[in-house]
């Protein structure tokens, strides 16, 4: 078997564009997911029964549907509901963010409920409001405690961004498909794409592990 990496070298800008989209898509869906997860997790824990069940329903529904189904629904079906079309990229961010948000919501809720009630009492006893207590005392500890699962979710978000290729977001996998079809060198191109994903995901996972080993003790009340 002969290996020919010239298609990679000749089309490096094309691949770089894909990488750019992958990073942007991941970053924005993580940002959206984190925003949803923070609000959802806090409201589910401290917002009373009604909010708890409403947010719980969102979480459970999203957790039982494949990302692929959420992506195609958001991109193809949702525009018919709102009467407004979406670009593949914004559809991708929306779908991946809403999907990730459910998992982050659950993770943050688990973190918040794991902090023992005495911490809230101590904060209230100082005269803090519940909101201040959650923001300055409970949430930081919960986030530190939940760093490992949150880190896995970040890695999963990067990997899931590749599924947005099915709605033609020009991210790394999509660009690779186009290139592989054009050059007939699937081995070189898909292998290169695989390596690029690995070089993003693996160090990210390790870095989060390392940070947690340093910070972990600060979340242990």
């Amino acid at each position, binding site marked *: 078997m002969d290996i020919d990496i010239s298609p990679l070298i000749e089309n490096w800008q094309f691949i770089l564009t894909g990488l750019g989209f992958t990073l942007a898509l991941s970053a924005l869906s993580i940002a959206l997911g984190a925003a949803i997860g923070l609000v959802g997790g806090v409201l589910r824990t401290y917002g009373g029964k009604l909010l708890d069940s409403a947010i719980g329903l969102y979480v459970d529904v999203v957790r039982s549907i494949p990302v692929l189904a959420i992506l195609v629904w958001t991109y193809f079906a949702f525009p018919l509901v709102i009467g407004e079309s979406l670009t593949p990229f914004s559809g991708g961010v929306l779908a991946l963010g809403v999907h990730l948000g459910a998992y982050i919501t659950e993770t943050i809720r688990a973190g918040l409920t794991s902090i023992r009630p*005495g*911490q809230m*009492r*101590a*904060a*209230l*006893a*100082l*005269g*803090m*409001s519940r909101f*201040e207590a959650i923001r*300055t*005392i409970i949430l*930081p*500890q919960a986030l*530190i405690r939940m760093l490992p699962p949150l880190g896995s979710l970040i890695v999963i978000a990067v990997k899931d961004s590749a599924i947005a290729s099915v709605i033609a977001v020009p991210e790394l996998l999509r660009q690779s498909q186009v290139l592989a079809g054009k050059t007939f060198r699937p081995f070189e191109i898909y292998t290169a794409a695989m390596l690029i994903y690995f070089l993003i995901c693996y160090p990210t996972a390790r870095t989060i592990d390392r940070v947690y080993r340093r910070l972990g*003790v*600060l*979340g*242990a*009340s």
Partner: protein
Amino acid sequence: MIAKRKTKSRPRIGSGTAPILSFEGVVKRYGPLEALAGVSFQVHRGEVVCLIGPSGSGKSTLLRCANALETIDGGRVVLEGVEVHDRRTDARKLRRRMGMVFQNFELFPHLTVLRNVAVGPTTVLGMPQRQAAERATELLRKVGLADKAAHYPASLSGGQQQRVAIARALAMQPDVMLFDEPTSALDPETIGEVLSVMKRLADEGMTMVVVTHEMDFAKRVGNWIVVFDHGKVVEQGPPQQVFDEPTVQRTRDFLSHLGWHGESLAAADLLVQPSSTDP
């Protein structure tokens, strides 16, 4: 060697004047359980009131009712004319005036010792960081932990953590300090350092409500002893009366259960470690 030390209990302070904190028939229910079944006693300015009694008798619940961490189902708690559980009362304003120290310290593990002490003034009073840090440093010096300011709580011993917790409560410059078994979670060798900080506070005139099993502390530092059992006050009075001539069988049972036989326990020696401010 049993050192018999003659202890003089302090007189009750300001018994004629209006109390700073008073409990009037306080009732608290958890479902069918009546954790507090009509508790009444008073705390005057500068006094140390010690709450004793078997575990589960409602002492912690009472402290939590004092600063509105719990609602109540009957009676009232009054802090200098302000009814604590009144709907119009701002519970947060009120809690600033009462410092609380917990059995498990409840330091904030993600903040340094200094920030633990400063976080109340900065978030609650909106005090600038610098000023709060100065106040915190001063208080840490007072509890003998100035050198630990940059450490995180996890690296401190239990006794040190509890002293930080006391400094944290003092940072809000409260009128009353509430202590819930501050030494129960400590190794025996660190109990003394916490008790002597508390004694110094008492000597400086701080008003204190202390739930404790340290009978020697109660007898030596307390001005007024309140004995709890099953959510009720079964006896209250000055220390020499409650400890030496208890009028109620319940009190006698409780004291003998603790191994108290009228005079000093071995733990007494922990308390009287001469500290520089001791008179």
